[in-house]
C-alpha cells in the first residue's frame, strides 16, 4: 500500500510540475504562437516596413474594390483599420464582413501589401434558409456577430 501511494504521489507531482513548466513556456513564447496580428496590435507595437507578417481581421463592409487582378480592401478589428491590397485569386469565402488572414508587408505609407490571403471562417454553421430568415428579420448580419 505504501509503495502504491508513493508512486501515486510521484506521478501526480511530476504531472503538476510538467503542467506548470508547459504553462510558463507557453506564456513566455506567446508572441510567436500568435498566427496573426490584428490592426490594433500593429497600432500598439508598430511594425517596421518590409518585414513579413500576417494581418488578421474582418474585411470592412463596402471597402472591396477591384482593379484588374488587384483587389483593394480594408482590414478592421472594429477598432483600427488598415488598407490592404492583393494581386491574384482570392479564396471563395473572401467577402465583406468575413474574417481574413493575409500575409505580406507594410508599405512606407502604412498600407498592407498581401502576398497570400486566407479566408477565416467563424464557428457558426447553419443552412442557407436559416441564414436568410435571420438576415430578413434583422437579428443577424454577416460579419456583425463575428469575432
Amino acid at each position, binding site marked *: 500500500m505504501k509503495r*502504491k501511494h508513493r*508512486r*501515486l504521489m510521484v*506521478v501526480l507531482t*511530476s*504531472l503538476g510540475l*510538467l*503542467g506548470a513548466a*508547459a504553462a510558463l513556456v*507557453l506564456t513566455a513564447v*506567446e508572441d510567436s*504562437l*500568435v*498566427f*496573426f*496580428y*490584428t490592426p490594433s496590435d500593429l497600432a500598439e507595437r508598430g511594425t517596421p516596413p518590409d518585414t513579413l507578417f500576417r494581418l*488578421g481581421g474582418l474585411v470592412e463592409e463596402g471597402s472591396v474594390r477591384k482593379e484588374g487582378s488587384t483587389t483593394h480592401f480594408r482590414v478592421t478589428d472594429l477598432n483600427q483599420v488598415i488598407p490592404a491590397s492583393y494581386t491574384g485569386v*482570392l*479564396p*471563395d*469565402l*473572401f467577402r465583406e464582413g468575413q474574417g481574413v*488572414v493575409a500575409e505580406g508587408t507594410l508599405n512606407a505609407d502604412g498600407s498592407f501589401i498581401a502576398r*497570400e*490571403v*486566407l*479566408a*477565416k*471562417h*467563424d*464557428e*457558426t*454553421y*447553419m*443552412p*442557407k*434558409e*436559416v*441564414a*436568410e430568415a435571420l438576415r430578413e428579420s434583422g437579428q443577424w448580419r454577416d460579419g456583425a456577430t463575428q469575432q
Partner: protein
Amino acid sequence: MFHRFANPARFSRIAARVLPWSTAATIILFVVGLYFALFASPADYQQGDTVRIMYVHVPSAWIAMGCYTFIALMSAIALIWKHPLADIAARAAAPLGAGFTLIVLITGSLWGKPTWGTWWVWDARLTSVLVLFFLYLGHIALTNAFDNPQRGARAAAVLALVGFVNIPIIKFSVDWWNTLHQPASVTRLDAPAIDPAMLTPLLLMALAFLLYFITMLLVRMRSDLNAARARALRLSAAE
C-alpha cells in the same frame, strides 16, 4: 473498482459478450449517421456542401483526443497500481488513436483548401494536432523498442503521461491564441453555434466513431491476450 475487470480471463469473457452488440451498433450507427451526414442534412450558408467534411473531421478529432486521454489514464493506472490489463489497453489503443489523428489531419487539409484557401498553416491548433500524431507514433515505437515488453510498456506509459500536456493545448489553442482555425462550435458555455439540423448528424457520427473505437479496442485487447496465452502454451509445450 477496476480490480474486478483487471482480471484478464474475466475481461476476455466480458469482451466476448459485448463484441457482437457493439459491432452491430457500430454498423447501424454508421449507416444512419452517414445517411444524415450525406443526404438528410442541409448545406452550409457559406461553405455549401464542403461542410459535410465536418461529419468525419470533428468526430475523428474528438476520438483522437479522447483516445490519448484514455491512454494517459491507463498509463497512470499501469505505473501506479501495476495492473497488467492497463498496459494492454494502452498498447491496443495507440495505433487506433494514431489512425484517427491521421484522418483528422487529412480531412482537415481537404477542408482547409476550399474554405481557407490553403492545405496547411502552422497555426497553434494545426501544429498541436500534428504533435499529437507524433506522440502516438512515439508511443507505438517505444512500446516495441525493448526486448522486454514490460520495459517497453513502462517507457511508453511515461511518454503518454508527459505528452498529456498537449491535450489541453489542443483544446484551448483556438481560445488562447489567434489561429486560422475557428473556435469550438459544440462544446461552448452557451448554446452550440451549429444548427440542430447539422448537430444531429454530427452527434450520430460521433457516436458511431466512439462505438467503432470501443469495438476495435476490445478486439485488439482480446487478440493481445490470446497471443500472450498462445506464447505461454508454446513455451510450456517446448519444455
